[in-house]
């Protein structure tokens, strides 16, 4: 079947099998390997991307379901001005080690701060509870997201 999907602002038309998973469309067809695959069961969240501005686990979304919709991946996070603040904060607060969960964590972090610019530690932990990290014990991921919130708040205050 033919689908048209907009990924990080660019429109792609592809002939795909109806069973093709969105994560495989992104990785194998479009070469966007920043989105990772870690389980098959929506537990690990390494494959988290946005579909129409909502985080989804792309290992359990069919590519066909993304037809006519907007997908945003980690490759679409940095803008012309450089890294998104959540990316910067993950570096500054050592929010990643092996980096495999990081793209998914970043997409959820960006979504959280867009909807709750000043989350508590508890709210941050709840927001990423559907995503696994085996390296960091989550501590510095939480710290990174809080750091991004504070930095963005300061920037808004200065503006």
């Amino acid at each position, binding site marked *: 079947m033919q689908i048209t999907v907009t990924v990080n602002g660019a429109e792609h038309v592809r002939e795909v*099998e109806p*069973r*093709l998973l969105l994560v*495989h469309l992104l*990785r*194998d067809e479009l*070469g*966007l*390997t*920043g*989105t*990772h*695959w*870690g*389980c*098959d*069961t929506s*537990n*690990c969240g*390494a494959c988290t991307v946005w579909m129409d501005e909502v985080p989804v686990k792309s290992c359990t979304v069919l590519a066909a379901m993304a037809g006519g919709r907007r997908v945003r*991946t*980690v*490759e679409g*996070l*940095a803008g012309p001005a450089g*890294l998104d603040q959540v*990316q910067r904060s*993950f*570096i*500054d607060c*050592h929010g*990643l*080690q*092996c*980096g*495999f*969960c*990081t*793209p998914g964590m*970043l997409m959820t972090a960006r979504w959280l701060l867009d909807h709750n610019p000043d989350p508590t*530690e508890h709210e*941050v*932990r*709840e927001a*990423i*509870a*559907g*995503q*696994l*990290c*085996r*390296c*960091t*014990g*989550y*501590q*510095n*991921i*939480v710290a990174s997201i809080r750091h991004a919130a504070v930095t963005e708040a300061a920037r808004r205050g200065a503006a």
Partner: protein
Amino acid sequence: MTVPGLDPTATPTGYGRMLRKEDVRLVRGRGTYVDDVVLPGMLHGAVLRSPYAHARIHSVDTSAAESHPKVRAVLTGEMLAGRGMAWMPTLSHDVAAVLATDKVRYQGQEVAFVVAEDRYAARDALSLIEVDYELLAPVVDARRALAPDVPVVRDEIDGRVDNHIFDWECGDEAATDAVFAAAEHVSRCDLLYPRVHPAPLETCGIVAECDPITGRLTVHATTQAPHAHRMLYAMVTGLPEHKIRVVAPDIGGGFGNKVGIYPGYLCAIVGSMLTGAPVKWTEDRSENLMSTSFARDYHMHGEIAATKGGTILGLRVRVLADHGAFNGTAQPSKFPAGFFGVFTGSYDLAAAHCRVTGVYTNKAPGGVAYACSFRITEAVYLVERMVDVLAYDLDLDPAQLRMANLLVPEQFPYLSRTGWEYDSGDYPRTLAVALDLAGYAELRREQAARREASAQTGRGELMGVGISFFTEAVGAGPRRTMDIAGLGMADGAELRVHPSGTAVLRVSCMSQGQGHETTFAQIVAEELGISPDDVALVQGDTDQTPFGLGTYGSRSIPVSGAAAAMVARKVRERARIVAAAMLEVAATDLEWAKGRWQVVGDPSAGASIAEIAMAAHSDLELPDGVEGHLDATCVYNPPNLTFPCGAYICVVDVDPGTGHVSVRRFVAVDDCGVRINPMIVEGQVHGGLADGIGMALMELMAFDDDGNHLGASFMDYLLPTSVECPSFELGETVTPSPHHPIGAKGVGESATVGSPAAVVNAVLDAIGVRHADMPLTPAQVWRAMQGRPLRSDLAIR
């Protein structure tokens, strides 16, 4: 002259908090993990696995699969046997099936391999393969593996009539028995450390490319030990080792899971040989959990002898080790039970003895892994649980009991009763720092008040405090006694300083998230007095790096890190000779000022490393016998292991109605010697503490009577998330290793090793129960409170 890439005003740096070089690509999604590798014409592999734990194979019919339009090759055990490749060596002097020939020995074992044009077609074709199985009774319960009436798992080995693999012992049995016979008090306990799995977020995978013209094999693989893998591939395939290149790109976590080689890797290699095209194989999560290296599975019986006042005198331990269907543990060869011999822990004992028996069962092989430093996790759990059992039996405070029995600094270097020489440590101070950080006395007061309130109202959460004091033994190891698959555990390093003063370091170990690109640059920077930004690291490519054993057992900094420091010191000494020629003075007239050789008594006369590097590559006349350029190589053979230690205190709240455990606080004080990058050290500790919470409360690979794997997905094998983990509170003490060039001891596994006992001790302290086995799920806690804890490794009947 201004040299590009060097800022002459930059302050020379070395150790200290420094942001990671790796991160700029990883936060952009620009890492390159194995499954990201795409080669022209690349095909995809998929493995057909056994649905049964134990069955004889009568036939494998691949004809329908072969006629699938997108299938390019189908591999079976019979086909591999024709090439002498149906079996591969394990890391423990055993063999393991690549693809089953005679029978399958665990659920999930590899039976056939399909090579097809895409991932989906390869999977489709698996369902077209017909296997005729004859079911056999499986050996599931390790405690029955040596009974006379059970099936023999390894009946293909000539003369084998039982499932016994090895008996191993250490310590002085007679002296220990005498201590126990005379002891005022003996506490005994059966402890199960259940089978768990490292479960790195990236599963195992490979892209194998066998060039049909040159006969050269290149593999991009998830490997923690590229050089060891190259040799194993040479052994199995018959290809000469110099025609094999192993490349480890970015690795999405290892934790021991990626130390050995797996059948899927070899099948992809054979698939590439057969088709002439590159073949990618990436296992799915169920395959990872069912078939790759598990950890633990130790059934332990501990005995601890003491005076009634709480002076610990001896430990006696019997262990039954479930190794699965093939003996594939990645321990140094002479240590079939790994470093379990450090089970005497951090205490001054009169005597100790242990005996470990390994058995085959119808479960997946392995037993390497999960950040375990070669079975030290089991040893620490044993001793730290036994100390708490003793405290329970004698009604003593577990902190005071530990403090009274810890080794003291004056005893170091300390030769343990089982023959290990602990290098350094200040145990009482480390425990004191942890108790202080936790506010131990206040916690006990709170606990007493809550208990009193609960006794009156019958309501309220139960609170518990658990302590664990661990001694690790890492940095394997001295070549004289330690090898893996015959390869001595020394590591090479090569350092080259370019004419403009920047440098490239090549090491044999391989990061899986530990941040080597940053830390190793800091080691060289500290030794040469240049910026870490000016030191590049090459790792994970056997064509580009010197030989060494890889990254596991917390050995990167203790062994390869030492090699990096030593090779930098060689370069620094060479620089001295060059500087002497430049300044026209004797080398002995020069002194080192970080980053610069200068004339004693005239600091204005000197040369920086960058200036010396340029001169070393120039037409400067050097003394006879001194080669030009500025580079060196070395091989570091550790004289001893390093012995990090730590004191961990966990505080939990338990809901008595449901048995649900909340980890309220976790205090961790680690002594890993000198910290190169404290930020990275603390990150490693955080990760290990989460591991400990997971193993203590959630993680379990159980099996039913038929040998069905009951933890084969993340729906069933539960890993800790952000809401199960508290905000960790860290502290430190620093006693440098006296024999390590920079005094560092390694830290990667300390928290995984030390934390499970602290969590279990806390939960049992909360509910007032002497012992219950991990994982302390709500059901297990609730049943323990009723006096009926479960045996967790078998299915609930």
